């Protein structure tokens, strides 16, 4: 039924025994990360669906709730994440061309920018807490819209940005591991797929924010 073929033996230390080549291993990693990102699209998707429905039901409440968010901090955070995506892409590039310094520098930049983002988020959350905008028993709203419906807006705000922030924290952890590996010179033009694959995750988390920002911060800014 079948003949046999001697598998090629690559002796790169990063090649795992069940793969035939580094190329096959890298392709599997990349495909794997994309499959995982598809699951993340569906995961966040449920929240976006809830957002769409409740915004359709409570336009005035969403208008008011959004207006109360700090647009400067939101826009600043958006810029920070876009910068971090640039540094991440440059870190992958540095690995592709074998620049250890480039990898370390750009990864540190990515981590710092991620930290800045989380710091700003923490400030925003603290402000909300002070203003009684955390949904639940202590929620208070003094605007014109129905407080019950504005509370739904803030439920979505906290759940969506909170879940996003959790993903950022995990991303920072991953970046620290990659940074350490880059410091130990583990990557080369022949083997850099962990950097690439971590970059995919990081960019995805940036994309989620690209949608969160206008949907949460930019409703009804006019008038």
């Amino acid at each position: 039924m079948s003949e046999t073929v001697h598998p090629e033996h690559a002796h790169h230390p990063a090649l795992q025994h069940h793969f035939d080549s580094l190329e096959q291993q890298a392709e599997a990693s990349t495909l794997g990360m994309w499959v995982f990102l598809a699951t993340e699209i569906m995961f966040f998707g449920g929240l976006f669906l809830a957002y769409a429905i409740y915004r359709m039901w409570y336009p005035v409440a969403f208008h008011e709730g959004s207006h109360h968010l700090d647009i400067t901090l939101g826009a600043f955070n958006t810029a920070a994440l876009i910068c971090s995506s640039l540094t991440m892409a440059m870190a992958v590039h540095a690995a592709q061309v074998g620049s250890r310094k480039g990898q370390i520098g750009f990864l540190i930049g990515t981590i710092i920018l991620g930290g800045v983002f989380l710091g700003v988020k923490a400030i925003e959350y603290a402000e909300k807490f002070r203003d009684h905008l955390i949904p639940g028993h202590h929620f208070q709203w003094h605007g014109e819209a129905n407080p019950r419906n504005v509370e739904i807006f803030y439920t979505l705000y906290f759940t969506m940005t909170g879940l996003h922030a959790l993903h950022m924290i995990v991303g920072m952890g991953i970046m620290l591991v990659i940074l350490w590996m880059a410091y130990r010179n583990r990557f080369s033009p022949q083997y850099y797929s962990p950097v690439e694959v971590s970059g995919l995750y990081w960019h995805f988390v940036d994309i989620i924010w690209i949608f969160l920002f206008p949907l949460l911060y930019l409703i009804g800014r006019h008038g």
Partner: protein
Amino acid sequence: MSGHVVSPRLYYLIFGTLMALTALTVGVAFIDLKIMNTVVALTIAVIKATLVVLFFMHVKYSTRLTWVVAASGIVWLAIMFGITFADYLSRGWVNAAQ
């Protein structure tokens, strides 16, 4: 590994475009376009996301399989949105018909 090496210049160009689009979306938010505000904001977001996916995430240089996997996530999201909204949008039609 046979990964395509994108030039840093292209990365910086994309970065600049993303920043400009961010400024644009903030600016447009202050203009009253009624229903178009949401449409414009989402369109800009989709463009930004597409740039990140194609260039930062290298999908433009990836295999068709990668493209299919990325697209299928979005298609499935559309399915979930679409059919759920079929319910939410048609609630109350029975009463309206009477």
